[in-house]
């Protein structure tokens, strides 16, 4: 009895009950594709978060003024707090005291509405800074140029604007060389930044960046800085850079109690770690949902296989009575189960790949190869085991017992 012969028997067995075959295949396919898609959605969302954090620059440490807590104790010490100054930024750039810091950029933020003719736009971020800011904050230029150190020294009113601001003010026309008025002060646009997208809280493209001297002179005055952006030499030395920042800043601000600093540092790496652990929880959650759907699908396969074998016990008896060896009968059912679960599994994988091309609740799914193998493997194994086990039991019956089965 050749394997080819057994496969022909199995195919005949499958085609004699087309509805049952179709439903089983469908059950497996849905189980497999839902696992693939759900895990892909979880993975896609975590990738999305990661990429938006990557755009912020992972080597970057931001120093901000700390306003202490609330209450009497915070108010009492408030007078001792020193603002962030350009001097701090210069001190942090010292290559001997801070060997792991690549560069720094002081940031003076303004709140101003910009206008061109009748078009107005209030940028989410209006920063006066140094040219080093662009690299430290991982911002690149799409069109035009950066402003230079000379622009800073001379206090020239030039600006680099983000895509949202440019569209608000100029529509589709090129903003380069045009003049915008922000808080009544004219700035000449010399460049636009590449699109950053949203980080979830803030539109990264609603942006105006100008030389710090020009912004301080015309808009914010010479008070404390909003922040100082520090770029470590690499992501690996971020912790060293952090220590150097604390040493330099503690000395300059005469901090004795390190629990009560008048500044605080925000580290992109720690932000990244938090958010990726959040999104991995999300992925695990989706994975569990998917696993349950696979399990339910598996129980469906089991059920149909069991019913299929039980209702054909009599047929098994007939086959045995005319000389079918146990192995041939078992093989026939195993091949049937294999074909069902292979075809169902493959359709499921195909469905998973197709489904992952569509955005689901705003997330572009990204397929995890492991999930494909897992879902496919589990469905095939379930099909084989739960098709094989009852078939082996039925094939072991004496022919007369199987024949009496109704």
């Amino acid at each position, binding site marked *: *009895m050749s394997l080819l012969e057994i496969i022909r028997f199995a195919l005949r067995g499958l085609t*004699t009950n087309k509805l049952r075959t179709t439903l089983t295949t469908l059950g497996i396919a849905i189980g497999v594709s839902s696992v693939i898609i759900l895990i892909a959605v979880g993975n896609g969302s975590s990738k999305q978060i990661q990429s938006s954090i990557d755009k912020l620059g992972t080597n970057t440490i931001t120093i901000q003024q700390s306003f202490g807590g609330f209450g009497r104790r915070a108010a009492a010490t408030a007078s001792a707090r020193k603002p962030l100054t350009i001097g701090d930024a210069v001190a942090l750039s010292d290559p001997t005291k801070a060997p792991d810091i690549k560069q720094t950029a002081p940031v003076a933020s303004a709140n101003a509405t910009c206008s061109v003719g009748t078009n107005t736009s209030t940028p989410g971020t209006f920063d006066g800074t140094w040219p080093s800011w662009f690299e430290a904050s991982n911002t690149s230029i799409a069109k035009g140029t950066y402003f230079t150190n000379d622009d800073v020294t001379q206090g020239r009113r030039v600006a680099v604007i983000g895509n949202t601001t440019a569209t608000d003010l100029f529509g589709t026309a090129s903003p380069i060389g045009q003049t915008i008025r922000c808080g009544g002060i004219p700035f000449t646009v010399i460049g636009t930044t590449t699109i950053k997208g949203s980080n979830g809280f803030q539109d990264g493209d609603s942006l105006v960046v100008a030389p710090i001297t020009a912004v301080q002179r015309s808009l914010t005055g010479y008070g404390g800085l909003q922040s100082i952006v520090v770029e470590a030499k690499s992501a690996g030395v971020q912790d060293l850079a952090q220590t150097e920042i604390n040493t330099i800043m503690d000395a300059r601000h005469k901090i004795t109690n390190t629990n009560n600093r008048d500044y605080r540092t925000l580290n992109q790496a720690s932000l990244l770690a938090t958010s990726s652990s959040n999104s991995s929880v999300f992925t695990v959650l989706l994975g569990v949902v998917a696993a349950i759907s696979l399990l339910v699908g598996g129980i469906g396969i089991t059920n149909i296989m069991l019913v299929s074998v039980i209702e054909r016990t009599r*047929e098994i*008896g007939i086959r045995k*009575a*005319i*000389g*079918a060896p146990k192995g041939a009968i078992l093989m026939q059912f195993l091949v049937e189960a294999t074909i069902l679960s292979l075809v169902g599994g493959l359709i499921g994988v195909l469905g998973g790949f197709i489904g992952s091309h569509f955005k689901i609740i705003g997330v572009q799914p990204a397929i995890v190869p492991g999930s494909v193998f897992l879902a496919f493997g589990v469905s095939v194994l379930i099909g084989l085991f739960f098709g094989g086990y009852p078939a082996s039991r039925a094939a072991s019956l004496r022919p*007369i017992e199987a*024949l009496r089965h109704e």
Partner: protein
Amino acid sequence: MDPVIDVRGAVKQYGAGDASIFALDGVDLTIYPGEYVAIMGPSGSGKSTLMNIMGALDIMTSGEYFLDGIEISSMNESALSVVRGRRIGFIFQSFNLIPKTTALANVELPLAYQGVKASERRKRALAALDVVGLKDRVNHEPTELSGGQQQRVAVARALVTRPALLLADEPTGALDSKSTADLLDLFDRINDAGRTVVVITHEDEVAHRAKRVVRMRDGKIASDTLNPGRVA
């Protein structure tokens, strides 16, 4: 001449202890090649049980069964499947064809399990269907055939492996009188060709055709007589 069937002290017990029932209670039966035996008896007399044991479909509680001189009761499952496939042709009251499968495929099936090549298989199956007079019905499924035709397909399936022994368990029980007559004529021809035929029946009409009639009662053989009308 060596017997085809040699059953010695066959006992088949269902249940245990006080509640146990003996379907066969010490049966000795010897059948020689070329015989045409009818086994008769009321229901519950053990005739079907005996038939199932002779067909290697069931096992007995104790006793010995030699088929063509070979002890069957000690055989393992895979050896038994060879015996069922090659030495015995079994015909059931309810035909027991594989549903949704053509007459030809049904007849080919025992050959397929023996590993006969497809072309050879087809040739032999067509020949067997020709013998039972169903040459024009080879591609019909069981539901498209009458009871008599279905039973003739079953006979073709039993004969296609060229067994020495044809066992039939109430083969005419589900047939009308015309189909019964046709089937009995067929059995006569099969027996005339030299095959051993054993038929279980409770119809006298069937028993009259046999050369030897064995009557059973309460799991024992009550009488074993030659049929004077048939034995030349």
